[in-house]
C-alpha cells in the first residue's frame, strides 16, 4: 500500500506517493534521479550510499523512505551552493582525496555528519568516524587530510 511521504530534499519539499518500506537509496535514485548515493553492498557495510538526514550521516540502503517523513534529506547533489563547492568538497578536490570516486559522496557526507557534531576533530576522530566507509582505491590518507583541512577552513563554523 502506498503512502504519502513528505520530506525536504536538498532544501526543496518533496511529496511522494510511494510504498513506505522502499529503501531511501532507491527512492532517491529512481523517483528523484539523484544517483549520487551509490549502491555498494546493500546492507549498510560500505557507506557508499550515505546521505544526510537532519544533518546526520545515515546509510540510505538500509533506511526506509517512511523514516524520513517530515525530515530534511541532503544528498551529495545538494551540498554545493550552485557552482560554489562546499568546503569539504573543495578540500577533497585540493587533496586529491579520491580515485575512482565511487565512495566519495559517502565519504564527504559522512565527514559532514562528523564535522557537524565535532567541528574540530583530531585525525584519530576522523579515522574512527570514517572507519566503516570503505574505499578500495586506497585514498584513505588523503581523505583524512581533506577532512582535517576542511574543518580548519571552516574554522568550526556552522555547517
Amino acid at each position, binding site marked *: 500500500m502506498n503512502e504519502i511521504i513528505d520530506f525536504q530534499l536538498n532544501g526543496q519539499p518533496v511529496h511522494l506517493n510511494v510504498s513506505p518500506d522502499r529503501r531511501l537509496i532507491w527512492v532517491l535514485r529512481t523517483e528523484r534521479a539523484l544517483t549520487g548515493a551509490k549502491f555498494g*553492498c546493500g546492507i549498510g557495510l560500505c557507506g557508499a550510499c550515505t546521505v544526510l538526514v537532519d544533518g546526520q550521516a545515515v546509510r540510505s540502503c538500509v533506511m526506509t523512505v517512511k523514516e524520513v517523513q517530515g525530515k530534511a534529506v541532503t544528498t551529495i547533489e545538494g551540498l554545493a551552493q550552485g557552482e560554489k563547492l562546499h568546503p569539504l*568538497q573543495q578540500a*577533497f*578536490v585540493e587533496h586529491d582525496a579520491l580515485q575512482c*570516486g565511487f565512495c566519495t559522496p559517502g565519504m564527504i557526507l559522512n565527514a559532514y555528519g562528523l564535522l557537524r557534531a565535532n567541528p574540530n576533530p583530531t585525525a584519530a576522530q576522523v579515522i574512527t568516524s570514517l572507519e566503516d566507509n570503505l574505499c578500495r*582505491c586506497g585514498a*584513505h590518507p588523503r581523505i583524512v587530510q581533506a577532512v582535517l583541512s576542511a574543518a580548519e577552513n571552516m574554522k568550526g563554523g556552522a555547517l
Partner: protein
Amino acid sequence: LNPHVPAPKEESALTLNRRDWLKLVGGGIIVFIYPAELAQAQDRLPSSYLRVGPDGLVTLFTPKIEMGQGIITSLAQMAAEELDLPLSSMRAIMGDTAQGVTDPDGGTWGSLTTRGAFGSGLRTAAARARAVLVTLASQELSVPRDRLVTKDGYVIDSANEQTRVSYATLAGGKNIEAHLDFTPRPKAFAQFTVSGKPALRVDAIEKVTGRAMYTADIRLPGMVYARILRPPAHGAKLTSVDTAAAEQLPGVTVKQVGTFWAVWAEDPELANRALALLKPVWDLPAAGPDEETIFAYLMGRYPSAQTVGQRGSLTTGEQASSAKFEQTYYTPYVAHAPIEPHAAVVTIENGKVRVWASTQRPFAVRDSVASALSVSSANVQVITPFVGGGFGGKSSFSQAVEAARIARAAGKPVSLAWTREEEFFYDAFQPPSVTKIRSGLDGKGKITFWDYQVYCVGDRGAALFYEIPNSRVRPWRGPGNPANTFARESHIDAMAAHAAIDPLEFRLAHLRNTRMRKVLEKAAALFGWQPARLPSGRGYGMACGEDAGTYVAMIAAVEVDHQTGEIKVKRIVCAQDMGQVINPQGARLQMEGCMMMGLGYSLTEEMHFKNGRLLDLNFHRYQIPRFSWMPQLETALVENNTLSPQGGGEPAIITVGAALANALFDAVGVRANRLPMTPERVLALMQIAPTLAVQPPVRVGDQVRVSWNGGPGIKLQKCAHMPPTGWQDVAGTEGQTSITLPLSDQSAYFRVIKP
C-alpha cells in the same frame, strides 16, 4: 612490440577515411593516433584521435577507460604538453567503441596505458596536431612557420606578439585536412611544463558533486531493472524453478533467458522481491576443494611446468652450497572487490544495440554482446562511464552479456547491476598460488643456486633480477606478481637471516641492476635504515620487485600484538623508478593506493569456500583495508628521465606482502609462508616459536644447530609441513638449549613447548 615497424606517414594518418571521420566527429582539426604495431595492419582504425574543436577545446577520443587510476588527467597532460595548451582546455571521450578507435592493448589493464605504444603514440599525435596548427596559422597570418610559437592555445608571431591566432579560430567552422612535409618530434622531458608536473585530478569536481556518472546511474525511458536467479554454489545445476509466486507480483516479468532465469520490473526493489519469491531446486555439485585443500588440488592438476629461465647448473650450485633452503609459499584466492559492483545498461532499437558497461574492456564487451545477440559488432556501441574501481576484476564482463540478453527478451532497456554478493560470487579472483623455492648459500653468504617453481599464477614477477650463478625459473599461468614477489623476497630474507647479513646489504650484494639498486637505496635512505642482523626485534621488513617496467622497493615497520597476533603496520616507505613521470601527483596516488590495498592481501583477504560455495560474500566477512589500518605512507619517485614512462597502476602493490612478512619475522622471529597473515595464523606461528625463543637454525658442517631459550621441562618440537601440522617432539631436547640436526631439517618449523 616491434620497434622496427615504421611510424605511419602524416599523409596517411590525416587523409585516411577522412570523410567518414569528419562526419563522425563533427569538424575541427583531427589527428589520428596509431600505435606502431598497427601501422602495417589491415585494420587501419586509429587507437585514438585528437580533435581541435572550434571552441578551442581539444578532445581526446581514446579506447582507454577511467577507473580511478587517473589517466583522464595524465593522458590530458601528455597531449596538452605537446599542444602548448592549459590542462583545462583538454577533454576526453573514453572507452566509447563507436568513436572510430580501437584498443591496441585489448583493455585498460597491465599498467599499459602510459607505457605502451598508446602513450607514445598520443604524444606524437599531439605534436603533429600542433604542427598542423602552426602550418595553418602560417597561412592565416602570412608569417613563416619557423617564426611562430605556440602558447596557451594561440599561435603567436615571435617577432610581433600582437600577431596571433587562437586554435579555436584556426579550427572554427571548417573541416581541416592538412599535410605535413615534416615529422614533428614530441618534446624532450626537460622541456615539459605540463607533463612531469603534479596535477590534481581533472575529474575531481564531477566526483565530489555527484555529477560523475557510473553505469548503474544511467537511466533510460521505459527502462527496467533486472535480477538473475543465481546458483548457491559454483557448479550447481538448476533442476526446476517454481515461478508462480513471483509472477503474481504486479509489474514483474519472470522469464527464462537462454541459460538463466531473470526477473525484471520498473522498480528495482520489486525485482528484488520477485527474485526472492522464485523457488528453485538445485542439483548441487559433488564435494570440491576448500581454501585449505585447494593447493594440493591445484598442484595435482598442474604436475609439471616448463622452464622459462635457466642459468648455470643447479647441481654445481648445490655442490657449492654450505647451507640449503627449501620452502613453499602459498597465497589464496583474493577478490578484486571494487566498491562499484559490475553493472550494465542495454537498449536495443532497430537492431542497434547500445551498452553502458562498468568494464575495463569495452571492445571485448562489444564483440561478446554482438555474438550473444547474433548481430554485427558494427551494430553494437559500448559506452564506458566512470568505472568505480576495476583492479583487473572488470576485465571480465558477463554482466554486459546478461543485460543484453535480457534487454532483447524484455524488449525494453535494461539495467543490470550486480549485488555485492554477486560481485564476490562471480569475481575473477586472483588465483591461489604455490611457489616452491630451493636455494643455497656458500660460506661467504653468496647465493649459490636458485630453483624456483611457481604454480597457478604465472611468471609475472618471477624473472630473477638477482645475480645468482645457477638458477631455474618455472612458471605456470596468469598474472601473479604479488605472489611471486612474496615468495622470492621472503626466501631472500630467510637466506639473509641465515647468513647473518643485513637484508639490505644481502640484496645489494646480489644486485648489479642499477635501477633496482637505486630504488632500494632510496627507500633505505627515506626510511632511515640501520643495518642489523635478522631478526632484530625492530619489526622492519623490506622487499623489492619489478612490474610493468617499473622498479619498486618497499620498507615496512610493524608491531605485533603478542596477545592477539595482530600485525599493526606503522609505516611503509616506497621508492619507485617508473621512468619519466607524467603526473608525479597521480603516480604517488597510485603508489599510496597500492600500499593501502596491499595491506588487504597481506593481512586479511582470502576467499573461503567449500564445495563450490563461497563463504565471504559481503564486507562483514571479506575484510578490506579500513581507515584504522592506515600506516604512515611515504613515497619517493626515483628520477629516471632518460627512460620513457613505465607502468604506474600496479607495481607498488607487489612488494607489500613480502615487506610485511619480512617485518613480521624481524619483529618476532617467525616466518609466515602463507598469506594472508591473519591474527590467528600469526598467533599460531608465535606459539610455535614464542618471541625469538627459537633462534634461526645455524649451519654447522653438514648439520644445523638449533638453539632456543630452554629451561626445565621445555622441549623442542619440529614440523616439516606448511601450514604446520603434525608436530613431533625432537628427541633428547627436554631441558636443553640447543641441538644439532641433519641438514634436511633446515626448512622445518620449530617450536618450544612446556608440557
